[in-house]
């Protein structure tokens, strides 16, 4: 993956793109092309605009100027949104009503089915495959509320994978996730990247996924400050130094009852 040359059609094409909310621009005048099969980290500090950029690709933020094309179509007119997977930044799945891992992941598959079709045999198998890929096959019919925070994040990844997307956009997938789950996630992403899925990962800490992501786009004050190999990006973003999980603000870790008590996992220790 890492050494695959960036050729092929542009999965994402931004030309002078200005993206924001209402009429307030957050990201300005961005030129960016991401080609099929690339694995890109979108880096930047809080408030840099990196999340707005990702939301612009999903049609959740407004394109105020320039052009944003996703899978060849202007983002507002993209018909088959089911081809784009999305893992939102959400620390837990806290729906009021109980739901199983299978039910939550199944939602990801619906987007491919039009308005009335129900999940068929192939769809249900794809949901099981997605949950298996994130290592939660034995929890398929458990309520998501019974899972740890890190596992719940993996359910959200499975939900995105269930659609078998060509482009997967993730917002801070490792924030507030214990090191063991971060490693599991890196493994999952390496697998789908190897299958040719294009990855765009918005993150403020690239270290946990450094083995998967090869290219970095650093956003600073709404503009692209760096675009190149991830390994050389550190000099362009003061926030790129690695935050060990135990130094995260405690609020981020409240959703992992089994690991907050002080023990750190082996992966941590090896750093």
């Amino acid at each position, binding site marked *: 993956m890492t050494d695959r040359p960036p050729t092929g059609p542009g999965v994402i094409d931004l030309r002078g793109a200005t993206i924001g909310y209402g009429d307030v621009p957050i990201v300005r005048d961005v030129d960016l092309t991401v080609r099929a099969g690339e694995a890109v980290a979108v880096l930047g500090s809080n408030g840099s605009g990196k999340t707005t950029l990702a939301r612009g690709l999903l049609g959740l933020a407004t394109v105020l100027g320039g052009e944003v094309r996703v899978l060849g179509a202007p983002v507002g007119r993209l018909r088959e949104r089911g081809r784009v997977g999305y893992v939102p930044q959400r620390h837990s799945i806290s729906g009021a009503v109980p739901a199983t891992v*299978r039910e*939550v992941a199944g939602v990801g598959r619906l987007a491919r089915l039009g308005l009335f079709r129900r999940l068929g045999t192939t769809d249900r198998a794809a949901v099981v495959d997605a949950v298996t890929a994130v290592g939660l096959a034995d929890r398929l019919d458990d309520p998501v509320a019974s899972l740890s925070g890190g596992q719940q994040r993996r359910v959200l990844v499975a939900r995105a994978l269930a659609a078998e997307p060509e482009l997967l956009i993730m917002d801070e997938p490792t924030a507030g996730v214990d090191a063991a789950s971060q490693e599991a996630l890196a493994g999952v992403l390496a697998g789908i990247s190897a299958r040719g899925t294009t990855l765009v990962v918005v993150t403020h800490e690239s270290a946990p996924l450094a083995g998967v992501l090869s290219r970095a786009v650093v956003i600073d004050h709404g503009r692209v400050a760096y675009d190149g190999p991830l390994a050389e990006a550190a000099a362009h973003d003061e926030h790129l130094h690695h935050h060990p999980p135990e130094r995260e603000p405690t609020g981020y870790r409240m959703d992992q009852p089994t690991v907050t008590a002080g*023990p750190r996992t082996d992966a941590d220790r090896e750093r």
Partner: protein
Amino acid sequence: MGLLDYDFMQRALLASLMVGLVAPAVGVFLVQRRLSLLGDGLGHVALTGVAIGVLTATSPVWTALVAAVLGAVLIELVRARGRTSGDVALAVLFYGGIAGGVVLLSLAPRGQATNLDAYLFGAITTTSPQDVSVFAIIAVVVLVSVGLLGQRLYAVSDDEEYARAVGLPVLGLNIVLAALVASTVVLSMRVVGLLLISALMIVPSAVAQLLARSFRETVLIACAVGVLVSVSGTATSFYTGTPSGGTIVLLAIALFLLVTTAVTLRDATARRRHRRRVDVHDAHPHEHGDDCGHPPVPHGDHVDYDHDGHLHAPHQTGRGVHYDEHGEHPVGAPPSGRPG
């Protein structure tokens, strides 16, 4: 005389069966969406429809249906467009609805006796044969819609932003849900009443949430609870002479309290058993961590510590940390993952 010897009771029981089944099937989505009070607001709006029906001598059920569905569509459009004023706009619509209803009803000619209480709180004697057939149509339409669109409604209610990102027609589904709620409100207006229907949408779901493990189970249990309290409440109302809507809702709340108590007791017992089993570790002399000298051992999704051949698993509770016994750790097993 038995309950079923009266035609009006047969109709009331039939209506209560339908509303008991339909209201929770729609209500679960409102609970998931944290919009529990939407039904209440649409009940207010429906009252204006009732009043227009009474004044124009058309069937108030039909005019209420039109008013409630229009109100529902309007609400969703306001919510979709609105930023800060959305909340106020809803309040204006809701209170405008009930105020309009009360004022218009007071203008009804004397000959047309209108019992406001019956519309607001339900009455068993008011369901006409035509009402039963309209209710049956509404019930079938709502249940078929939930059957066809249930998974999408769940998706939108659960995570609206995600649904939008993957291209589900969020506004359309929200309008459909609101229209289903509006229809359910009208279905309830004879037996349960416009001011109390929201309870029959929400409380059975609340009971089901305590018992179910999946969304599907929640819907099924909620519907069973809805039918149970609705039919038994209507029957009770026949013997006690109390308004059927109030009786049904009190029964539902009683059931909710009962189940809450039972579940709380069950959990407390489980916690006590758990504490008894791990009693020895309550007074654990230190916290396991990097420097405690006990080797960490990965165990499924967490890390245990090998404390003299026993696996100790940290368990964070509201009262701090204690250590659960996770079994023997065979002596000599490599404390995996240690560097060097």
